[in-house]
């Protein structure tokens, strides 16, 4: 289209003659200005490129930093959480073992109480025996008294026998005292045995209560630890997810930064075309063929936008992946 328009408006010869001096001046200005423009564009291009490269490097750093952080947190999530869970389980097991040990203690206490109770049977027998000793003493006493009576009836002849009877009576008294002492001792033993049984049972009761209470408390603490642990891993997972999202965003931004390549290409092309135009301006004026120049320029375009601009269309930004390299 542009070529057509150029063709349709050729400079008419009369105006050409009038404007030749002005055209020369303009040509001279173009000769002077074109290298400057080209340099300006080059500078802009170089600065943009440098800035973009630095920006890209920064973004890449951020991405790799986030990557490292994610890797670390994954490691700690993978190793730390199971550690804690295992510790909890271990705690539970230890608690169960302690409870078992205490149960065993209670069992042995009960066995002890049982044995003490069975002792009571023996002490019962002992006190019966002590009673028998008392009975025998009583009967011996009666015997001795009867002997003394017999001795008295025998008169002088029974005198020696009376002494024997007296001694037997003393013995029976001793036996009675001994029987009484045995009874007392057995009674004391019975009392202290029943006291022991009572104390033992009381201790077993208190112990059982304490054990149950401690167990409940430890269970409670473990449960609290567990829920705390769950909350911590939950927030760690959230953090990981957010970090990953940010990383993805930044990586995408990095892709977006590739626009620099296209801009650079376009600008470089403009600059090189300017230099080309400058060369042609220095050539003798008759030799210049504008149509040929534009056609040459169009042939060297590398992007779709350039081609569209050349044809007078609006150059919409196109997707990065649509870039064609030749």
């Amino acid at each position, binding site marked *: 289209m542009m070529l057509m328009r150029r063709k349709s408006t050729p400079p008419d010869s009369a105006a050409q003659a009038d404007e030749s001096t002005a055209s020369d001046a303009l040509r001279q200005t173009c000769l002077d200005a074109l290298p400057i423009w080209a340099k300006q564009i080059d500078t802009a291009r170089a600065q943009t490129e440098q800035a973009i490269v630095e920006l890209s490097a920064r973004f890449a750093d951020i991405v790799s930093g986030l990557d490292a952080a994610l890797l670390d947190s994954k490691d700690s999530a993978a190793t730390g959480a199971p550690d804690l869970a295992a510790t909890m389980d271990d705690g539970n097991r230890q608690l169960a073992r302690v409870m078992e040990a205490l149960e065993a203690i209670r069992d042995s206490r009960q066995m002890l109480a049982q044995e003490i109770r069975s002792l009571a049977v023996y002490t019962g027998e002992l006190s019966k025996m002590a009673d028998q000793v008392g*009975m025998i003493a*009583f*009967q011996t*006493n*009666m015997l001795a*008294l*009867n002997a*003394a*009576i*017999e*001795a*008295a*009836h025998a*008169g*002088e002849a*029974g*005198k020696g026998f*009376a002494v024997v*009877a*007296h001694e037997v*009576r003393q013995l029976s008294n001793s036996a009675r005292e001994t029987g009484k002492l045995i009874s007392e001792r057995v009674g004391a033993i019975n009392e202290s045995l029943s006291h022991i049984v009572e104390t033992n049972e009381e201790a077993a009761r208190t112990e059982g209560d304490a054990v149950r209470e401690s167990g409940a408390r430890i269970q409670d603490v473990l449960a609290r630890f567990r829920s705390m642990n769950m909350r911590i891993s939950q927030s760690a997972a959230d953090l990981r997810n957010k970090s990953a999202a940010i990383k993805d965003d930044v990586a995408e931004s990095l892709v977006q930064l590739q626009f620099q390549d296209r801009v650079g290409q376009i600008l470089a092309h403009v600059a090189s075309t300017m230099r080309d135009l400058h060369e042609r301006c220095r050539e003798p004026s008759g030799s210049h063929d504008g149509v040929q120049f534009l056609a040459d320029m169009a042939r060297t375009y590398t992007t779709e936008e350039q081609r569209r601009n050349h044809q007078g269309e609006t150059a919409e930004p196109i997707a990065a992946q649509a870039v064609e390299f030749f």
Partner: protein
Amino acid sequence: MASAASNQSTADNEPRHDQNQYLTFMLDRETFALGILRIKEILEYTQPTDIPMMPAFIRGVVNLRGAVVPVIDLCARFGRPSAPVSKKSCIVIVETGAEDDRHVLGVLVDAVNEVLEIPQEEIEPAPAFGASIRTDFIQGMGKVRGKFVIILDESRVLSIEEMESLTGALDMRAAS
């Protein structure tokens, strides 16, 4: 012969040590004594066989090697309430009466203590009044280890005539 007889009589008149021997026993927490020569033996308590129409102080009879022996409850005889029988209760067999009229009786006591010697000089006469039992029952007050023991006069306490008259009165009452 005469000298021998006289020797015999002097031996009889001499104070024999066994004549001063006494059996002490308990009745209602009080200690009593009986001369040992009147006592035949001591039996463990056995439930006497009840005899109807007898006064309260006769608990019944026991079989002493075939002989029927009445058992006297001394508490009842003294007009006191009888103590309950315990495993220490005994029956003391006593012989009363003169040479030609002997009676064997059982005496129920709470417990027998001992046979001991109370010398004549340690025996005081019965008090005119203030004793816990009838004065004519008391032969004397024997001092044993600083305490007085009532020595019973068994001829009075176990007087067959008196007891028979009491039983007769009972018989009369039952008959009327």
